[in-house]
């Protein structure tokens, strides 16, 4: 076995791992607080990547399509600024979704929540196709990506972009942990996640707290989309597959465990690169199949995943 090649593949996988981890984190934050799987998370994230794209390219009708063209300032943004703008827009959209679509339903059935998020997925997807077309678009990378932009470790190349994306993910995670542990809003969010009714009894305003949760989650989603748009090319359905990986990662780690999302993303990202490399039938195209199978097997054998809490059903 060629160990340098193996190490190289692991290094290559780490970039995707970070993307899956952050989208899985978005899913977990919402599931933990509301018990709902946000199927529209990927499309909402893609939408913010398009916003970043529009901010980057300035007011060119050919690029910006209809609808949003009038809203863009005259000067194109720099890449980090555009991504920050997209994340802010994503957070606002997430908060608005909670307020307008989820809260009025007031803990309705699984079916109603699935309907809302699937409706959001379909509508957002076709809206993006209408405004920006279905063709893939080049999205610049925030990190240097040219030839030679890498460290060499034990003969394998570790790209700057991989290091950079992990640096961003980990620093945002540190911020998140600080927010949850050391602020009143964080305390309120933790209380609501454990028990909404008890939190309400001690004076926490459950609605606004959940709205902050949605904003946080959508921020992670937006970050994932903007950072991965360079490698997967920006198109309306670019996050559909990524969503399967992220759901597999979240399921593997335990749907209500942020730590699980991180570990799950790491494992799924590695297996996505390593399994096709060593199992010829799978190939690159089918690399999403092992992720789906992993998801099914975990849900069958150990629904709580690695770190999730076991759910006890009362009948």
């Amino acid at each position, binding site marked *: 076995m060629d160990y340098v090649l193996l190490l190289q593949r692991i290094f290559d996988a780490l970039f995707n791992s970070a993307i899956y981890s952050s989208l899985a984190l978005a899913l977990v934050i919402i599931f933990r607080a509301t018990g709902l799987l946000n199927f529209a998370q990927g499309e909402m994230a893609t939408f913010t990547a398009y916003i970043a794209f529009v901010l980057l390219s300035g007011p060119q009708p050919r690029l910006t399509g209809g609808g949003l063209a009038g809203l863009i300032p005259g000067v194109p943004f720099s890449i980090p600024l555009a991504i920050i703008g997209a994340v802010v827009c994503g957070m606002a959209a997430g908060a608005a979704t909670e307020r307008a679509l989820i809260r009025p339903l007031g803990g309705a059935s699984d079916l109603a929540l699935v309907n809302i998020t*699937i409706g959001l997925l*379909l509508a957002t997807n076709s809206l993006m196709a209408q405004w920006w077309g279905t063709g893939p678009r080049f999205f610049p990378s925030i990190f240097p990506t040219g030839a030679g932009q890498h460290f060499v470790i034990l003969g394998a190349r570790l790209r700057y972009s991989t290091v950079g994306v992990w640096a961003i993910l980990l620093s945002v995670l540190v911020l998140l942990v600080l927010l949850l542990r050391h602020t009143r809003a964080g305390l309120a969010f933790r209380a609501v996640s454990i028990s909404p009714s008890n939190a309400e009894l001690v004076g926490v305003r459950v609605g606004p707290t959940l709205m902050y949760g949605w904003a946080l989650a959508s921020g992670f989603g937006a970050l994932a989309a903007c950072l991965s748009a360079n490698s997967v090319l920006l198109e309306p359905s670019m996050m559909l597959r990524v969503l399967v990986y992220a759901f597999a990662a979240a*399921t593997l780690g335990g749907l209500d465990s942020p730590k699980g999302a991180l570990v799950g993303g790491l494992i799924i990202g590695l297996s996505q690169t390593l399994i096709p490399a060593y199992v010829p039938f799978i190939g690159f195209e089918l690399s999403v*199949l092992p992720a*789906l199978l992993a998801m099914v097997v975990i*849900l069958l054998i150990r629904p709580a995943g690695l770190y999730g809490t076991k759910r006890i059903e009362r009948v």
Partner: protein
Amino acid sequence: MITSERRVSRLSAVGIALLGVALFVIPFLTTTTSLRQASQIIVSVLAVLGVNIATGYGGMISLGHGVFVGIGAFATGYYVSDLSLPWLVAIVLGATTAGVSGALVGLPALRIKGIHLALVTLGLAIVFRPLSKRFPSITGGVSGRSIEARFDAPGWWPGDGRMASSVYRYVFCVLVVLVALWATWNVVNSRFGRSMRALRDNDTAAAVYGVDLVAARVTTFALSAGLAGLCGALQVVLVPFVSQDKFPAQESLIIYASAVVGGLGTIWGSVLGVIARTVVGKVGSLAAGFDGLGPIGEFFSLLDEPAFVFGFGLILLTFLFPRGLAGIRRKDQPSQ
């Protein structure tokens, strides 16, 4: 209460009569192309009905029924061209193949429930296209494959030429859909149908009353996938060409959305869902044809997109009429 019930039944009687007249008149008014499109719309009722069986009656959310439509289409194409089976046999076998694969998906559904099942079936819908590209001898790989066999009118059929064959295919599809609707109506009102609904409402209670949970869940899913597979088989009858790019994940979601918008748990809901999709799409494409409407025109051209209409409709109906279009007049009953 009683008067409202009677009014509903009179309304649906008028609706059925109108539908019947429309179905009878359509072949006299159109060209071969629009007759084929009409047939495709009618056939799509079957896939929606399939979702309705799994989700509306069986309580198992399926976001992946496009997969079974695809399996039905690919399998029928394979049977009729590679194995040179007669069309009728190929159609039945194609639907059966989809049903068997549905039973396989139904097996994990014994333990995976609710929102988690939705997740798994959505994953299935997303995986289906790359998976089918892996079997190019059956699916034609990336570019698809055309089926040499044609479903043409036999000698005794009146008229000749392309139009006669189109009418023949149309009549065949209408008959198959009507028989399927009738059969499904009978199934859901049978003893098995009651155990299906008992399972949906409370599976523990159903088991206590002697419903075999494993058999009921697997049969329900197989039946529902079989209906979707029949839809796929008839698609091959109408257009002898199969390709993976007809079955993106969005297609599965649109089928699901049609079932919900029409109304889960009623047979007519599936028909209504397809009618609603067709009407809104027609309005959209008509209105998008006018120039100079500005932003309103842009909105109308969005109405032409089934994905947008049904995404939007799904959200709207969940708030306004949780029982779907078929349940608008039945607000007195508690929604599930």
